[in-house]
């Protein structure tokens, strides 16, 4: 959707974490500072009303990006632009802050166990003063609970009385209660059973259509991502290795890592093909390999890959960071 206006933009986001040992221990063993490069230079844009997904294995930095996009983590360098404003400024004003919300992974940790559901859903309404008086707040809560497929009577219960899927609905109702326009969804269905996952994905799609929401969707599950995304970014060790329209990514995956990921997914169709799983494991983000971070596991790696880090460059509709693709060696 090139004609839609850019709504959210990440400009060269970097986030480092200091994971050094305490200073006394460090002096004792003569060890330098240890910097974990969780996110190491990521840029993307999300047009209004669309979904961008970030996929990757654990430790690739996708959840860190999610938290930077709502301001839970600051940036080491780079900027997040929200509707044309710097995120820091946007978050300083409550009428801007209410426009972005987040949905979390663990439905058992994302709701305060000591609060009633109505109070949980009402928290943003009260924080932003979106309804005046107890009755107005409760009416709005009832409306939100209905919207996510729960009963208004459920507001009087406590979170432990609900199943995982219902809790995730409550979480969504809370996020919607401030009338947001941009929702960051960090693995919203990973903790759910597959039949419930379908319910939540359908609900999220319905809400997007009805309310014109913009999503940043974080997941490790490529099949899920295919169902919800307009565009998809594949992350590896803190960087984007491929960024493409959803259908393009699945029909012509270009980066060797993207291909390896798809190859690794168990085949439900039972075509009987033998898969050749990619060898090796994700290296430590504290001591990433030089050059392309994927080169130790890449079948196409050569000397240049070991030396020089590839930039994310356009290759037809796709953006891909791979020397082999750019040199035409990828086949």
């Amino acid at each position, binding site marked *: 959707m090139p004609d839609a206006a850019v709504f959210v933009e990440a400009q060269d986001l970097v986030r480092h974490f200091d994971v050094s040992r305490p200073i006394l221990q460090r002096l004792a063993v003569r060890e330098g500072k240890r910097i974990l490069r969780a996110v190491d230079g990521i840029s993307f844009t999300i047009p209004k009303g669309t979904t961008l997904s970030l996929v990757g*294995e*654990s430790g690739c930095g996708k959840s860190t990006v999610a938290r930077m996009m709502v301001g839970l983590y600051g940036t080491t360098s780079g900027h997040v632009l929200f509707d044309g404003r710097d995120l820091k400024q946007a978050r300083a004003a409550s009428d801007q802050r209410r426009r972005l919300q987040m949905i979390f992974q663990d439905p058992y940790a994302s709701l305060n166990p000591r609060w009633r559901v109505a109070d949980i859903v009402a928290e943003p309404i009260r924080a932003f003063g979106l309804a005046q008086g107890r009755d107005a707040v409760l009416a709005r809560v009832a409306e939100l609970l209905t919207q996510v497929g729960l009963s208004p009577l459920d507001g009087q219960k406590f979170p432990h009385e609900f*199943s*995982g*899927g*219902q809790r995730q609905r409550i979480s969504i109702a809370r996020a919607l209660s401030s009338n947001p326009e941009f929702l960051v969804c960090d693995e919203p269905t990973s903790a759910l*059973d*597959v*039949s*419930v*996952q*379908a*319910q939540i*994905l*359908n609900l999220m*799609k319905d809400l997007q259509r009805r309310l014109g929401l913009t999503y940043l969707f974080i997941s*490790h*599950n*490529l*099949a*899920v991502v*295919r*169902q919800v995304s307009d565009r998809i970014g594949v992350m590896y060790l803190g960087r984007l290795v491929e960024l493409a329209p*959803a*259908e393009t990514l*699945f029909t012509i995956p270009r980066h060797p890592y993207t291909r*390896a*990921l*798809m*190859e*690794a*997914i*168990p*085949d*439900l*169709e*039972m075509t009987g093909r033998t*898969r050749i*799983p*990619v*060898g090796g*494991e*994700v290296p430590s983000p504290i001591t990433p390999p030089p050059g392309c971070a994927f080169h130790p596991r890449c079948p196409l790696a050569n000397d240049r890959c070991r030396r020089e880090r590839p930039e994310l460059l356009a290759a037809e509709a796709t953006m891909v960071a791979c020397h082999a693709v750019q040199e035409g060696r990828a086949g």
Partner: protein
Amino acid sequence: MPNPILEVRDLRVEFPTRRGTLVALDSVSFAIQPGEVLGVVGESGAGKSMTGAAIIGLLEPPGRIAGGQILLEGRRIDNLRYEQMRRIRGREIGAIFQDPLTTLNPLYTVGDQLAETMLTHLPIRPAEAKRRAIEWLELVGIPAAAQRVDSYPHEFSGGMRQRVVIALALCAEPKLIVADEPTTALDVSIQAQIIALLKRLAREKGTAMMLVTHDMGVIAETADRVAVMYAGRIAEIGPVRDVVKAPRHPYTAGLMASIPPLDRRVERLAQIDGAMPRLSAIPQGCAYHPRCPKVFSRCAVDRPELMDAGTTDAACWLHYKSPAHA
């Protein structure tokens, strides 16, 4: 048909609580042949892990086996004392859990743990055990096994640890492996490596395996037969291809349809409304009937047992043929 390695007959597991007794498993029956991989799938709380725990004698208290039998090569093992069961667990049944750290002892090197297990269960000398420990590490794909054999569990990554656990479960050459979500904690690329490894070893050693997982994809790739569990009972059991491609139970059909496909985008995923009932509130009749699109009057009254549904066995009244017709 040859004698099965494992046979479970009418297994019933109960949890006495102060609010009454919960029936966690009921009428669970299946058998695993030598060299066969039986997949057990279901959603959380369906009882799949509990079935595995009952077989290896590690039910969490106050859970207890309240009925039925578990037979290993025709010998009952459900009524053994803890000490006897512990010996069987190392020698004849190997166990693999989701979190490798629960199986590995952090205070001993992986080589010592492998050697110790073999010395306990096999008639070999320490030097031989050490040599075999290295062999096993090579077999499960740990690079530089001769050096890593003296490493401690925390020095391995998650995927490597799970390989060590697999070596540990297999090194005493058990007849049966119970693997409970062995790849759930791992990333997909590592998961694929582990599945390939398990499959190869089970084939090469002729070991029977019970593979418990929530991931239909893993089952489709690995298992020969599959049992689908719902609310503590088996809803459907049969050859994996038939269950996956042409499920006979409406629950299996719903479950399969709700898996997001990788090869295409669908506007709306098929969903099963509602959620699996809690053990304290299992409905009368078929436990699935409140969510079932094909429900009819009998479903709310009588509980269906597994019955012949053509290619598979399904616990569903849709497949009931009255004796008069048969």
